[in-house]
């Protein structure tokens, strides 16, 4: 690069007087000055000194000013050449300017014009140099930025490729443009088989295609993105298998133009399996924790059986018919207690596969009332069926609902026990009715002892019983479990010493839907609020 000091001038003129006068003026102004009396000498000095500024007379013998200018410009320096012209040399001056002379000044040379001209030339050089520096700098910057962009792009490609989530991006036509490793691994498709060949609709089901159409594509540019929502759907593998996935997607915008969408999904099979295990292990834990409670219940029953045997023996010994009868009743009661304990435990610990079919709730309620009549009579309770005709049949696991109602009715009968409530005669009503929000509603209402306010929250939990040794604490827990399996709901209303009302609410819907609904049951239990028990 040329020397940065701009205050260096080469003066070429054949008139000695001008050389003298001008160089004095220049030196006075702080310039370093070389002088030459002809073009050849001038070019020679220029080559050696590389002065940024050249003042040259235009008319000289030998190499004239125009030629000096031409040769200096040919050297590709950033030096500026100012032409000195005499009177009437305007034509020459103009051609000098065309040859990129910086300026021209006329003889006689006025200092003021000279310095303005020099100053302008210096500024030109300065700008040229700055521009050159800037350009060089810019090239470097571009190189750096390109490297950075490459790095980021590699990083993102890496990120997308190594994500545990499957990532599939589509362009605005819905054609797949990105299909990452996880997606490849899960579906068995290679990138080449999918990218630019298949559409989102080809690998996801119609649900996702619909979502694409309504939210992610150009058609609906103003669709509002529901942030954070996900869709549980399936993805089709190369072999045609449907794998359950949880999917989120976003529309990609560039300056308000839809350029495509990207979807992220997770394989739900592992999660589903873990959820299932969790439910099972909770069930086992509930049983483990309370084996002491069970032992206690059994101890009480054994006590009852022993007592019964004692009374029966006394009956034999003394030939007393009353003792025989009372003792035998005791034995029977305790045998039925232990069998119901065993049944309750089995129901709760076993993962029973509910079998759904369309059925009339009135039929089930009728069967339960018939079944429980004898027991109600034994406890001096009126058991009444109040069925509403014309209810729609709903998809239900008939034996589950049957068991539910048996539990509720037998609780209701127990609650009416005259010795506890002081009723002459208790009353239990099993009612089927319509409900504004549910397909079918079954109520079991008693005028028994009611539930204490503080107990309402506990009645559906493990092994809570208000019946002391008579209850296993499992009945309502099973009722709740069955209601949930039906995606239904249990409600309870109760006033102490006035009675209780248990309400089982069931949704409608075709049986097939509920049939494969066991997986969505799990999801419901895991991610949504549990149905409130004591509402």
């Amino acid at each position, binding site marked *: 690069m040329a020397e940065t000091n701009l205050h260096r001038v080469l003066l070429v003129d054949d008139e000695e007087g001008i050389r003298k006068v001008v160089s004095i003026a220049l030196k006075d102004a702080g310039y370093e000055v070389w002088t030459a009396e002809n073009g050849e000498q001038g070019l020679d000095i220029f080559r050696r000194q590389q002065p940024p500024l050249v003042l040259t007379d235009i008319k000289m013998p030998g190499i004239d000013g125009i030629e000096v200018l031409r040769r200096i410009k040919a050297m590709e320096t950033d030096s500026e050449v100012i032409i000195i012209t005499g009177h009437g040399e305007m034509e020459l001056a103009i051609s000098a300017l065309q040859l990129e002379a910086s300026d021209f000044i006329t003889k006689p040379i006025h200092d003021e014009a000279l310095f303005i001209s020099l100053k302008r030339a210096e500024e030109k050089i300065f700008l040229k140099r700055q521009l050159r520096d800037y350009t060089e700098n810019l090239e470097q910057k571009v190189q750096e930025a390109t490297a950075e962009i490459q790095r980021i792009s590699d990083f993102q490609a890496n990120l997308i490729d190594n994500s545990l989530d499957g990532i599939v991006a589509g362009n605005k036509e819905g054609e797949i443009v990105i299909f990452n490793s996880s997606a490849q691994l899960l579906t068995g498709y290679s990138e080449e088989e999918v990218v630019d060949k298949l559409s989102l609709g080809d690998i996801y089901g119609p649900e996702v295609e619909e979502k694409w159409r309504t939210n992610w594509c150009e058609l609906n540019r103003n669709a509002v993105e529901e942030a954070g929502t996900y869709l549980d759907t399936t993805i089709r593998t190369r072999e045609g298998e449907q794998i359950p996935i949880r999917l989120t997607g976003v529309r990609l915008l560039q300056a308000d133009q839809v350029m495509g969408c990207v979807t992220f999904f997770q394989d739900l099979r592992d999660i589903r399996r873990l959820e299932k295990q969790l439910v099972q292990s909770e069930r086992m834990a509930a049983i483990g924790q309370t084996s002491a409670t069970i032992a206690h219940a059994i101890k009480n029953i054994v006590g009852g059986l022993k007592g019964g045997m004692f009374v029966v023996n*006394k009956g034999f010994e003394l030939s007393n018919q009353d003792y025989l009868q009372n003792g035998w009743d*005791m034995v029977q009661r305790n045998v039925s207690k232990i069998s119901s304990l065993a049944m309750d435990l089995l129901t709760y610990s076993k993962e029973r596969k509910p079998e759904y079919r369309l059925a009339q709730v009135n039929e089930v309620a009728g069967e339960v009332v018939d079944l429980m009549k004898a027991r109600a009579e034994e406890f001096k309770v009126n058991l009444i069926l109040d069925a509403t005709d014309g209810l729609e049949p709903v998809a239900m696991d008939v034996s589950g609902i049957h068991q539910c109602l048996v539990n509720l009715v037998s609780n209701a009968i127990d609650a009416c026990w005259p010795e506890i409530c002081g009723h002459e005669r208790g009353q239990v009503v099993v009612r089927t009715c319509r409900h504004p929000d549910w397909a079918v509603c079954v109520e079991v209402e008693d005028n028994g002892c009611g539930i204490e306010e503080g107990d309402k929250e506990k009645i559906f939990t493990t092994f809570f019983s208000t019946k002391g040794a008579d209850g296993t604490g499992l009945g309502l827990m099973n009722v709740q479990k069955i209601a949930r399996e039906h995606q239904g709901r249990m409600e309870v209303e109760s006033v102490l010493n006035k009675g209780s009302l248990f309400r089982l609410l069931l949704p409608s819907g075709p049986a097939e839907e509920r049939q494969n609904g066991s997986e969505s049951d799990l999801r419901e239990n895991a991610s949504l609020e549990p149905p409130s028990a004591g509402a």
Partner: protein
Amino acid sequence: MKKKKILVVDDELDMRTFITTLLETSGYKPIIAVNGEEGILKAREKKPAAIILDVMMPREGGIQMYRELKTDEELKDIPVIMLSAIAKKTFFHSQQVLNTYRGQKVPEPAAYIEKPPETEELLQVLEQCIGC
């Protein structure tokens, strides 16, 4: 000799049947009450020689009835045999807590038997109580 009256207070039918049979066949006259309220009434009315009282009963319960008996001038000398599924230690602890809490000193029951009662044990304890 007139049969001694024993008041049996228990909400459970099985337990009542068993104890009354045991008492009847052992020469006593059982009187039945199914809750604490009835128990106090019958105790006042029949003046039993002893009371066999279940601790765990709905509502007022046996503990409350026991305290009523022991703070009643007329009834406090009737020996009471507590019968319960609760461990003896737990019961006595609860009595101490209640004594401190209410600032009243209630004597310990004549006997405490854990459920289910053995026939021999119950009779033996009963004899001792009435005898003394």
